[in-house]
């Protein structure tokens, strides 16, 4: 299936940022008509390698060839023009522009300098039809879900006569059917002879679609392998560089007695809590030390529940009791006063402050709670930051680096640290493991278990049912913006039953278990 001559080679690539050595002497090659998975933990250098390839960054050392010719792109536009198209990890589109405008922005078909809007819309529709998407191309992109936006980004990339298509974690926000749809497209493109560089954290997906795997670790090259010759376990070992201690012990945890946990006064109890257009009124109790999983499809109202409980959006009505006393959660500041913390799923827009350093990002929530007149003494800051950099294994370990220089997974850990520093009583984690690698994922799952053992309540939102099942004491199921069921996580509960509940919404009789 692969040609003998690579369409793209990168040799001896090195790249450093102030305080960070992102890549060191990395080789990479890509053959026409193959899907090549680039694997590695957070901070291994995957995103940096792609940015070097597409000219977002200059290389410090090393050479890139395309079709045997040395190339050096000045930026993604030039790379795209040469046939190397990229869909970046975080969707880089303009949500206020229409779908069609997003697909053709910067290269609109023109007649005498005027944009031919009819042509733009017609071609956009044709392109989306190729992806089996039926969208109103004149509607603003922001009116569609993140998953659809991702597909539009891919449509934009494949419209250009691409020979190399780079997909940086395209599946992290897609559900199963959307992933299948994407893979169908990827196979189609591969059979047309396009070389696809695919970055993902989902191992199953790699084995489903990739022909070849290159593994990076800590900015260095581990090796290049044929997928058929690399068992899954060895892949994981190569990625994390040590034997994986599997998620033993965590399994036991979630099977603990729910009744015992739910004996006392609930930490937070809401009833008839809802917001028009976001989520139907629901009731939920969360006790100290309890992990409540929130399962449901993308767009089923999971995030909306989290935002209401944190006061990020204001509920239309309903009652809130904290520690049994009537209360309200109307603003984030108020929720934080009650001991609630919230890690948003959208870490770039709603999480990190890119300008500020790792240290400043970490102490932000605590400082906000204290008020600006009572700054946290610098020594105390350093202690806290040092503790969590070590505890969460944040790389690079220099807290004065701007947080934007960190990889996505490490930024996620910085956000976790921001809330752990405030010692919350209820921590809401919205997709904390999305788009991060298995090593960090395990670390975060273990952390959740430890925290709940220590008495912290956790509301855990994830698209991965296995993860929800592994960690939760009870699982609330969302469907079409309604909380349709709350299931105790006992022996009888498995992923199939949750799936059925999501699919049918018929387990209402078990609500308020």
């Amino acid at each position: 299936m692969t040609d003998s001559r690579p369409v793209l080679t990168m040799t001896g690539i090195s790249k450093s940022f102030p305080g960070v050595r992102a890549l060191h002497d990395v080789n990479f090659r890509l053959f026409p008509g193959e899907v090549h998975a680039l694997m590695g933990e957070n901070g291994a250098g995957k995103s940096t390698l792609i940015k070097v390839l597409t000219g977002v960054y200059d290389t410090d050392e090393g050479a890139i060839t395309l079709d045997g010719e040395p190339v050096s792109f000045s930026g993604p536009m030039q790379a795209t023009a040469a046939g190397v198209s990229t869909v970046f990890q975080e969707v880089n589109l303009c949500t206020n522009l229409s779908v069609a405008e997003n697909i053709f922005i910067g290269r609109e078909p023109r007649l005498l300098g005027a944009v031919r809007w009819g042509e733009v819309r017609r071609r956009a529709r044709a392109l989306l039809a190729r992806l089996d998407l039926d969208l109103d191309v004149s509607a603003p992109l922001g009116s569609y879900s993140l998953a659809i936006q991702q597909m539009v980004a891919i449509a934009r990339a494949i419209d250009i006569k691409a020979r190399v298509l780079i997909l940086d974690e395209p599946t992290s926000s897609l559900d199963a059917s959307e992933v299948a749809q994407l893979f169908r497209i990827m196979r189609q493109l591969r059979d047309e002879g396009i070389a696809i560089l695919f970055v993902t954290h989902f191992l199953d997906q790699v084995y489903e679609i990739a022909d070849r795997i290159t593994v990076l670790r800590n900015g260095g090259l581990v090796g290049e392998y044929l997928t058929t010759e690399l068992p899954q376990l060895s892949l994981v070992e190569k990625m994390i560089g040590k034997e994986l201690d599997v998620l033993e012990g965590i399994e036991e945890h979630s099977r603990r007695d729910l009744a015992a946990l739910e004996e006392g006064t609930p930490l937070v109890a809401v009833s008839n809590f809802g917001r028009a257009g976001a989520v139907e009124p629901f009731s939920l109790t969360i006790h100290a030390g309890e992990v409540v999983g929130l399962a449901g499809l993308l767009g089923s109202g999971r995030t909306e529940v989290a935002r209401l409980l944190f006061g990020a959006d204001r509920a239309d009505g309903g009652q809130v009791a904290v520690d049994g006393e009537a209360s309200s959660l109307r603003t984030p500041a108020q929720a934080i006063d009650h001991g609630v913390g919230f890690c948003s799923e959208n870490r770039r827009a709603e999480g990190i402050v890119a300008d500020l350093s790792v240290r400043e990002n970490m102490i932000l929530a605590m400082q906000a709670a204290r008020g600006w007149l009572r700054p946290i003494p610098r020594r105390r800051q350093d202690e806290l930051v040092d503790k969590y950099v070590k505890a969460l294994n944040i790389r690079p370990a220099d807290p004065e680096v701007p947080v934007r220089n960190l990889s996505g997974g490490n930024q996620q850990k910085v956000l976790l640290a921001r809330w752990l520093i405030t010692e919350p009583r209820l921590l809401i984690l919205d997709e904390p493991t999305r788009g991060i690698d298995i090593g960090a994922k395990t670390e975060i799952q273990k952390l959740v278990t430890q925290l709940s053992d220590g008495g912290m309540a956790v509301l855990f939102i994830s698209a991965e049912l296995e993860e929800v099942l592994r960690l939760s004491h009870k699982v609330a199921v969302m469907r079409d913006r309604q909380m349709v069921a709350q299931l105790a996580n006992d022996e009888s509960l498995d992923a199939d039953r949750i799936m059925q509940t999501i699919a049918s919404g018929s387990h209402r009789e078990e609500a308020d278990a």
Partner: protein
Amino acid sequence: MNDTMSRYRTMTGHRLFWPAAVLFVMLAANTIYRPGFLSIELKDGHLYGTPIDILRLSAPLILVALGMTLVISTGGIDLSVGSLCAISGAIACMYISKQPDQNSVGVVVTALAMAMGVSLVLGAWNGVLVAVIGIQPIIATLILMVAGRGLAQLITEGQIITINSEPYRAIGLGHALTLPLAIFIALAAALLVAAFTRRTALGMIIESVGGNAVASRLAGIRSGRVIFLAYVISAACAAVAGFMMTANVSSADGNAAGLWVELDAILAVVIGGTSLAGGRFFLSGTIIGALIIQTLTTTVYAMDISPQTSLLFKAVVVIAVCLIQAPAFRARFSRRRRSAPPPAAIADKPKEQVPA
């Protein structure tokens, strides 16, 4: 070679390097043109000389720009500072002019307190429009920029109010420890603002709000209060600048006092390295920016550039300063230079840093 290179890069990479370099080049050019430019002499216990004049004359701009730095850092802008200068000056002068003993220190202090009080209220007005009602800062402060001139005219009843008050005049022209008092006032204000923002967590919180307002809210920051405070501080700085401007000429002109100072202040902030998009702010950079602008004005006079061309001259210098500071422009410039020599030489040249 490598060591020298990396030291060179560390130095040029410092955020204050380019503004400071520009200031240095300007002073050097002036000195070449007129060798006595930098000379300072002691007369009657006071220091005189062009550098002292530049410091003294830049004091009002430094004040206004300090407040502007905080506002811009929140992601906003304050266009009303010029009008606020006029209003504060008008109130102070009007009150003093109505008193029998204009030289009484008590009268002057009362006048300053009144004017400052009104300025704080007007700053709070800006703050409420932006932080509570949610009007875009450029529009919200445009209201007071326009209306404030009218207000100043109203206070002075359309006249130029001339006063004869030694204590008030001292704010602009007095001396202490051989140096003009205005320099100390600007310095004190700078230290005060720096302490207020950097000794507390206010600075970081302002930067956080300006850097990512949504994330800051979700981290529990009550951004409204912080933004409100920035506009109030900006108004207070403008009020003191207004005292200086009117004290310099012992008169209050509702039309002319502080005219266009908001634009100079914004320019000083930007030259100093604070992004108009908000986020990180640099008070020391702002001060250098204000000094650059005042040096430029002085240069125009010193070099006898005709009034007709002086604005154009200023514009050209400002464009050059901004270009030198823009990383994209520097990158393009050095890349072109790099690609010129044959490939063999490339390896020795420093690779430029593209900011992440």
